């Protein structure tokens, strides 16, 4: 540490979040997802937080996912934090322009939020306000760059310094920056290039779209490693446990950018206990991903199944979760 800075100590971390510290320490991390309620329902946030507390290292708080209005990710992230869960706040480009984004990032930081995932956002046509006007002032890559510039260059998107007056000290929001990657969308050969653009823009970690087609994911990881991208950012492999064969077919047929092999659907269909089989498949996937070079952790998106996350992580041998270093 440099002398002459008084009590100030320069942290080796960008944000100091638990997620960042664990990844820096080389731990195989586990993140989960908490979808905020569709009403002013505090209890639901508390209940879901309770399922996830201590079972995972951090929890993504989704931002009007599938373009359906919910409690804001900012508020829900703070409430989750109060419940003892480290939040990863998601922010989409669909609903906010660059002014609102930066204001929310400043506010989120003051509320103790240290992880931010930057997303394009689902198109409004999928949600409950299909006649809304979307924003897309920025796209996800430009958002990543903006959050990085706020943290590392202490400037707003307009180039002004983040300070109250010319003589004031800059007080910048320091976020650990996440981004998404979808190895299953097209054009396949461009997906890794787009990942690289996100990393160059400032993504510290990546959470992928949920993986069912392990062969295609392996091919994507081959391309990731060939470019050395796993050394420039931490890659968390996305997983969503399947509850029923119907859900599997829906995801295969209706959700763009998801590749779901028939063999998996057959396993669920032929099982007498499809939910148990879905969890078994998920645990097998975790084991396979743990042994894959360049995969730094998993992102478990158990949609409306938060209470099963602890069981899955436990079966995968990933409990107890490690304590982050100081």
């Amino acid at each position: 540490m440099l002398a002459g800075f008084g009590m100030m100590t320069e942290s080796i971390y960008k944000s100091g979040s638990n997620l960042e510290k664990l990844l820096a320490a080389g731990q195989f991390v586990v993140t989960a997802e908490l979808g905020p309620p569709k009403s002013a329902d505090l209890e639901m946030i508390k209940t879901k937080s309770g399922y996830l507390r201590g079972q995972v290292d951090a929890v993504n708080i989704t931002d009007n996912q599938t373009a359906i209005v919910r409690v804001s990710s900012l508020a829900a992230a703070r409430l989750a934090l109060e419940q003892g869960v480290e939040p990863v706040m998601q922010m989409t480009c669909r609903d906010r322009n660059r002014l609102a984004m930066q204001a929310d990032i400043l506010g989120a930081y003051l509320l103790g939020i240290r992880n931010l995932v930057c997303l394009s956002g689902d198109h409004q046509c999928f949600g409950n306000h299909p006649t809304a006007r979307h924003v897309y002032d920025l796209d996800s890559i430009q958002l990543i760059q903006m959050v990085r510039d706020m943290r590392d260059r202490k400037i707003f998107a307009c180039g002004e310094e983040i300070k109250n007056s010319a003589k004031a000290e800059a007080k910048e929001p320091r976020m650990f920056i996440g981004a998404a990657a979808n190895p299953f969308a097209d054009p396949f050969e461009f997906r890794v290039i787009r990942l690289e653009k996100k990393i160059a823009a400032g993504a510290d970690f990546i959470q992928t779209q949920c993986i069912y087609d392990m062969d295609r994911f392996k091919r994507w990881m081959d391309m990731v490693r060939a470019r050395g991208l796993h050394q420039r950012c931490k890659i968390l492999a996305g997983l969503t446990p399947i509850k029923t064969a119907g859900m599997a077919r829906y995801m295969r047929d209706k959700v763009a950018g998801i590749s779901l092999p028939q063999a998996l659907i057959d396993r669920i269909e032929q099982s007498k206990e499809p939910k148990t089989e879905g969890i078994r498949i998920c645990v097998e996937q975790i084991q396979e991903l743990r042994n894959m070079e360049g995969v730094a952790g998993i992102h478990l998106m158990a949609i409306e199944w938060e209470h099963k996350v602890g069981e899955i992580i436990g079966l995968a041998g990933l409990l107890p979760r490690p304590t982050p270093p100081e």
Partner: protein
Amino acid sequence: MIVAEQKQIDEIKGYLAGHRRVLVLGCGTCVTVCLAGGEREVATLASVLRLGGGLACVPAPGVRDSGEGKLETLENTIERQCDAEFFDPIRRQAESCDAILSLACGVGVQLAARLFPNKPVYPALNTKFMGTNEAGGKWQENCLACGDCKLGVFGGVCPVTRCSKSLSNGPCGGSEEGMCEVDPERIECGWQLIYDRLKALGKLETLLAAAPPRDWSKTHSGGPRRLSREDVVQG
């Protein structure tokens, strides 16, 4: 060209309720080409209005219905409704009517309204977009007039118009087999088109650098956009 389509007849009839003598005014440029507001459409719409089941002839309050409920329509089509000079020959005709039904795009309707300050001017069309004719009866948008054209960077395919999210650094995760998740049957992924085009041109490296945030003030920033060119300003 500007592509437009005719409004539902009931909406048009609603506007004309109470009027007795209406100038049905076509435009000879874009909307003629896209078969929405040219001479032919003027004739068709005028006859529908005259004959069409006792429509717009509700007498205005306090006016005695002496015309047996008939709407009188005058028809005309000028070369361009976005240019004031073309209105000169129809000025007298317009003044003789108590309303104008314009089959121009929104630009023409607004200019007509400005030129005839005491005359109600109604739109007969919905102005859709600037685009191309793709096949018989099919048109597609190609330009949003964003005011800051980057087609030179994106291989001649506009991400603002063609991408459902107007992403500058696409494609997002909703691109599958060349189609956009917003409507996989009908909407091509604009970013797949950009990718394919730049690949064919051997210029994929263009996409390696992130495109910076757009300057949307060139698109919409309060008040109508204006253009003033010193080189053509007439003393």
